[in-house]
């Protein structure tokens, strides 16, 4: 396969001038020493080499959490959703908070892969594979919750339009039905997009695998990829088309998720600002999660040559930008509550800030608005540890934001006689922790079994570096 690839000119690559970013940052996308071989070797060795001990340790933790998830689900199915803290009026609790949170996290992958691909942001190359995988796993986690939160989860399929003997269709005015379509479409397109991107790399793994079993498995998954020009041409076309398809989905999924709230008339939910506000929040939390995953991996697998400080810096910038969009959403919510002159809206806002859950609201503002202001400093953006901390704060903050929206709005709505508090039970927490376990388990398996950085695309970068004028079309 390697003979098909253009031969790198070693002499030229070593004397490459330092790449300047459009903003003039002297940060390279790739360490200067990287060659086709080194890239292929380094990335595929992670998959084909021995299992590191630390990986086993991490996997054990993740897997334990996954088992906790299974126990929590088992007990849930046995007893009913009453094992959670939900009640009337707070009929939606952690399950919906978690759902929205995970869906939000699932936004960065497609955003990085598709939108940044379309706008020729080459720096996406080193991280897009990982973030796409993250998207899939996050959406998988998210997808669990709408099913689990049902009173009778065994009949969840009634929400799907299928010809049945009862002659019944779903009720298409309900945002929950739109949700199903939005999430399912997003998951499908993301999966196909991810898989198509993987095919050349799977072929590389097939070629480099030493054992028969790996050769067969990777070979089957590579679907006969031989790297011919025709293959490349079709692959690139398909990839671009899927990127085009995925781009509107990034915007639509969370818009539709936000309809779950904005279509309802609950003060604090019933707001036209929700779709853009949710999308911005989703990208915000998605990038925060990317950083939380990439920074430890980069350190552990010594991938600093691929995921450089420039990547960190760029992602920090995106966090700062989306963070302000989210902050604008918060400001507008408060403003509109006041501007509406509606007693219920006004009370909702006052209660959000000063009511029994007020401290959570202030925690949210601190985590999502105050802490990320550190990203104005380039030193923070390029310091892995500081960036990791800020991203973690944002991740928690975004979870808290959904809690404020879901629980904070429901617990005190129209009639004070129905007001109540919501207190999560141990099973609420177990389900949240368990879903993180599912996510991490899938992620650990992914980095062990598949190349977490796109080998072919990084090789493309090397090609471009060697022939700056000869830009690849895809």
């Amino acid at each position, binding site marked *: 396969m390697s003979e098909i690839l253009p031969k790198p000119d070693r002499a030229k690559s070593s004397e490459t001038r330092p790449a300047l970013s459009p903003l003039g940052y002297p940060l390279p996308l790739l360490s200067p020493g990287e060659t086709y071989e080194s890239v292929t070797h380094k990335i595929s060795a992670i998959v084909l080499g021995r299992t590191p001990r630390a990986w086993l340790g991490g996997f054990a933790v993740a897997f334990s959490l996954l088992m906790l998830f299974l126990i929590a689900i088992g007990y849930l199915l046995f*007893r*009913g*959703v*009453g*094992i959670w*803290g*939900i*009640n*009337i*009026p*707070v*009929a*939606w609790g952690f399950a919906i908070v978690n759902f929205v949170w995970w869906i939000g996290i699932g936004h960065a992958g497609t955003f990085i892969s598709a939108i940044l691909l379309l706008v020729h942001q080459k720096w996406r190359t080193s991280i897009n594979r990982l973030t796409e995988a993250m998207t899939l796993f996050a959406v998988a986690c998210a997808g669990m919750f709408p099913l689990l*939160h*049902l*009173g*009778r989860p065994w*009949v*969840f399929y*009634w*929400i799907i339009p299928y010809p049945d003997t009862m002659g*019944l*269709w*779903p*009720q298409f*005015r*309900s*945002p*929950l*039905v739109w949700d199903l379509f939005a999430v399912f479409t997003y998951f499908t397109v993301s999966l196909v997009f991810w898989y198509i991107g993987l095919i050349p790399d799977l072929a590389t793994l097939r070629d480099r695998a030493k054992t028969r079993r790996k050769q067969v498995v990777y070979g089957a998954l590579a679907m006969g990829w031989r790297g011919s020009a025709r293959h490349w041409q079709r692959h690139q076309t398909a990839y671009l088309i899927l990127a085009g398809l995925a781009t509107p989905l990034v915007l639509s999924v969370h818009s539709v998720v936000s309809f*779950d709230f904005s279509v*309802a*008339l*609950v003060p604090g939910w019933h707001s036209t600002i929700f779709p853009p506000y949710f999308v911005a929040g989703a990208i915000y939390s998605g990038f925060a999660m990317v950083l939380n995953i990439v920074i430890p991996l980069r350190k552990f697998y010594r991938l600093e040559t691929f995921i450089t400080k420039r990547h960190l810096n760029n992602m920090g910038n995106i966090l700062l930008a989306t963070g302000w969009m989210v902050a604008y959403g918060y400001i507008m919510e408060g403003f509109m509550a006041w501007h509406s002159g509606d*007693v*219920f809206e006004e*009370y909702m806002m*006052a209660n959000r800030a*000063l*009511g*029994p*859950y*007020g*401290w*959570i609201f202030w925690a949210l503002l601190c985590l999502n608005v105050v802490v990320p202001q550190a990203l104005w400093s380039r030193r923070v953006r390029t310091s892995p540890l500081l960036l990791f901390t800020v991203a973690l704060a944002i991740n928690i903050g975004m979870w808290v934001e959904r809690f404020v929206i879901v629980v904070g709005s*429901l617990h*005190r*709505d*129209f*009639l*004070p*006689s*129905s*007001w*109540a*508090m919501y*207190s*999560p*039970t*141990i099973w609420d927490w177990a389900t949240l922790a368990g879903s993180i376990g599912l996510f991490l388990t899938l992620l650990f398996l992914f980095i062990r079994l598949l190349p977490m950085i796109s080998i072919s695309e990084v090789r493309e970068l090397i090609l471009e570096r060697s022939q700056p004028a000869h830009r690849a079309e895809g």
Partner: protein
Amino acid sequence: MNSTWHPKYWRSIHNLSGEHRASCRNEFPPGASEWSNPVTRRQFIELAGGSLALAGFASCTRQPRQKIVPFVHQPEGMTPGEPLFFATAMPFDGFGIGLLAKSREGRPIKVEGNPQHPASLGGSSAFAQASILSLYDPDRSQAVIHGGQISNWSSFQLALYEASIAQERKHGAGLRLLSETITSPTLAAQLRAVLKKFPEARWHQFQPVCRDAAREGAKLAFGEFVEAHLKLDRAAVIVSFESDFLFAHPDALRYAREFTTGRRRTGPDEAMSRLYVLESTPSITGSMADHRLTIASSEIEQFAGLLARKLGIPGAGNVGIGPTAWQRFINTLAQELNANHGRSLLVAGEQQPAAVHALVHRMNDQLGNRGKTVVYTASAEANPVNQTNDLAELSEEMERGAVEVLLIVGGNPGLTAPADFEFAARLERVPLRVHLDIERNETADRCHWHLPGLHYLESWSDIRAFDGTVSLIQPLIEPIHGGHSPHELLDMLLHPPPRLAYDVVREFWKEQNLWPDFERGWRRALHAGFIEGTALAPKNVTPRFSKGAEPLTASAPEQPQARSLEVVFRPDPSAWDGLYANNAWLQELPKPIQKLTWDNAVFVSPALAARERLRNGDVIEIDFAKRSIQAPVWIVPGQAENSLTLTLGYGRRGKTAAGYNAYPIRVSNALWFARGALLQKTGKKYQLVSTQDHHELQSDERQIVREIDWRTLQKNPGALRATVEAPPPSETLFNPDEHPYHLNKWGMAIDLTACIGCNACVAACQAENNIPVVGKHEVANGREMHWIRIDSYFRGPPENPAITHAPVPCMHCENAPCEVVCPVEATVHDREGLNLQVYNRCIGTRYCSNNCPWKVRRFNFLQYANYQKKEMEPVWNPEVTVRWRGVMEKCTFCIQRLSAARISAKKENRPVRENEIVPACAQACPADAIVLGDLNQREHRVNRLKASPLNYSMLGQLNTRPRTTYLARLRNPHPALTVA
């Protein structure tokens, strides 16, 4: 108009006091986040064993013993699948409440008020509604117990026979009978026969919620025991001296109807009655007051004396001058009472001392009310006695060893007797103790013999209502656990072998020669549920002024010592005197006003709580009369500052309800209240669960409950029309005529002026619609299942707020917000405008509940309906689906009743009649506050109500166009007492 629209409402004293700041920091209430609902191994085995054993029992059917004849020819009037109604009566505190019991395939499933019965007028109470559950209660006494071991009736009969032979020789010198208040003519005749056979035997009566003060007061005023009957619909000014006549009175159902008749006003030219209430702890009657004076129970005597003096009535004694705060109240009252000669009515509370009753009788006489708004009759009781003295005598005899055989016919004196009688201990000195009751209670455990009694739905008897009307109690089911009624027990004493209760009652009435043709008369009486013409005739009595020269009232009480408080005892609205402590429906019913469930608490005033730094659930120790108990406190707005109110009937071992027992500090000279209690904090906490706490309502701008002064409405009949309602059609995209509803168009109107907040509707709904009980833990989680609830809102200062009740069922919105969000069309609209819930289509997203602004939807978070408990199965209404875990449910306007009415109307090719479509809540309401009807039939009463200027939609501004609307609460405050 504006003055009506700027009241400040609030829901919780906790928030008003600013304490909520602290609790804000504490995100989750203490204990709320623990998972404290484990099924322990022991519990599991207990339950498993129980279910197994009961599974065996369930296969045994209950067939009558005497004769079983299959239906060869279908009995006349019986169609399988159609309910049958039988008139019967429920004994409550000795007096009868006429009921119609609904029987399905031979099992009673629901009771309704008997519209023809004078003590019901078609209404019923929560107690009556929940009594059906007591019938099937598996914890009922099921077997004869002798010395703690299961025995049988023949052994008992032998023992009784031996004892009666011995007593007969002594002319019954050692024989004593103890019963609760008896009004049953048959039972009274039997008791007299017993006393004739055993001339030296004695019959004593005692019940904890006794009416001794009323009896003594009447005796003081008139020289004889007479009962005062209130004619509330005729009174223009009503003054209650701590009388809860709308709830805690033998004739409360009738009073509630008559009182609200005098209050319901639509036209501007009618007069409206005005109610003044003086009380120490907020009651249902107090919540209906136009002016409520918060006053310690022990101060009411002084107040009555002052008022009497002001009215120029002798006998007030040295009452002092009273606090200055009373002056304006007394002056206004005196002026109003004098201005309404013959149209006012003063009522003394049954818990007030005899002097207050006597003064009230005199004032009523002086004001010309006698014979007009208050009518006197002889007592309906068979033998009206001072029960406290009666029991004192018995316990003293027991102490002396004079009692050899004691038959306790009903009741639980071992628990409820005044603590200073040490009744339970003295009981041990009686050589043969026999106890007959429906439950094996504390007294049963101290008796040699315990005999299972009968529920009123399984026994023959008769009983008199408060006005004397005799009701026949006819059974609807063969005794489930094979007990016997008091008639049969007494008959064992009289003529062994005993007759059946049916024969005893029937023969008694046959001897009365009431009817020329006994069979016809008897049948008619059974059919109607009461014997016509048995009401007591009014008695012309005059107060004896000559003898009343001595002051009736004690001299003005001296200032209470520091830290000395007043204890006030009250029957509990859920447990009464303890009789209903095991009734889960009643226990889960949020108590009126405080909305507590499953427990009782000591009610303290906000001021006392602030002084003693008490918070809800703090356990205090109350020292009173050299005795002490520990109990949790609940801060109640409107409570008198230095009064601690304790409710009876809780803290009973092995009962469903928890709580604390107040009886140990209730002594004979302080049956209802007394000063001199000390309060001590223990530092312990107890979780009290309320369905409507921790809320604050910062402004009235929500306009949830609307109220208006009668005078304001008279001046401006459109005053309420100007308030927020649905937007006009020009401003909305919703087409109001999208669905024409050609056939029936159901609508409901709830009159907030009439609703007294008594919970009868909630209990009736629970019984009708198979609503499960979820238990204290789940209520604490906010998961109670009641389809209709009563919201109580307070307005004004926490020391003395105005209270408004609002029953909230499903609004059945035409633009229902719940319907659009359901992903599977499990909640849909029907062509009659009902918002339906399709249980077997529901997948449980709970989105509909989130989108319901009234939060009337209820969700089966767990498997609440108990399919395992087979012995409770007969109580379920076969016309209503029992809901499975994971589905949403809510008020249906009793669609099963609507369907039945529609079917019969269709068969007869006529429109549905108004009286056919009465939902359970409306049927139970003693005040007739809830009306359902067809909006397409103009003559239906609901249309008239909806056309009233008081009609409004709760949260109408949301444009969901609710079919349930409210009539604003009318108040009639006196201008001189209205706070500027």
